[in-house]
């Protein structure tokens, strides 16, 4: 698969589209179906495609282990951190209304941030799981 030039070129063209679609799903959950989880999965699918076509070593080089760990931790910290911020602002845990001047604004901002957190951790975990399984396959 790795020596097929057509596949490599097509992948290089497709990848930006996949990431764009992931971003669309990430930020469009307000109106249609979608949200952080689905976006994270699509994002990870892009990386996994890259790994399948260019080899898992190339993917390991592109996303080092330390970055993956950071991503896995950061998304969850963002979500849980939003709750801590609302505590600090005098509301209950995850009471987004306190985040902005009006409750509705605060809700929008809060949902935006937690969905982002979901997307980051899900994408990082999926890529890590793929690499972990792939690492066992190579003799």
């Amino acid at each position: 698969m790795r020596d097929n030039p057509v596949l490599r070129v097509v992948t290089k063209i497709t990848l930006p589209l996949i990431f764009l679609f992931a971003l669309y799903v990430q930020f469009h959950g307000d109106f249609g179906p979608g949200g952080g989880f689905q976006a994270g999965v699509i994002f990870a699918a892009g990386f996994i495609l890259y790994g399948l076509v260019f080899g898992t070593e190339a993917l390991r080089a592109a996303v080092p282990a330390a970055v993956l760990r950071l991503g896995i931790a950061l998304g969850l910290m963002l979500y849980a951190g939003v709750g801590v911020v609302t505590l600090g602002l005098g509301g209950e845990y995850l009471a987004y209304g306190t985040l902005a001047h009006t409750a509705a604004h605060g809700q929008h901002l809060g949902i935006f941030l937690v969905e982002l957190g979901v997307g980051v951790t899900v994408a990082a975990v999926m890529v890590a799981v793929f690499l972990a399984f792939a690492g066992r396959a190579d003799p």
Partner: protein
Amino acid sequence: MSAAGLYNYWIVILLMMAGFYVVISSGNLVKKIVGLNLFQASVFILYISMGKVAGGSAPILREGVTQFSNPLPHVLILTAIVVGVATTALGLALVVRIREAYGTAEEDEIHQQDESL
């Protein structure tokens, strides 16, 4: 009268039990995990079925629609699907390690190796 309204649920129960049967009857570690997934996916259908309102539509608010299906089971099942895939990933990782340590993914062969110690 009663049969018509419950018929759906009975098929879903059949699906759930098919998955459950695979989990507890199969001796292959991978197939057990597949069974768990079948079992859980069928439970998801049970939840979503109870949220359906005849004549309702997807719970996205828009002009001209007044009758919606129940969104709460959808939310619960979104969470449950994610929990399910997390379990699957962990279970399969365990299977890979067991296969490396024992050279097999069959329950009875693993059991024999541990017995012979």
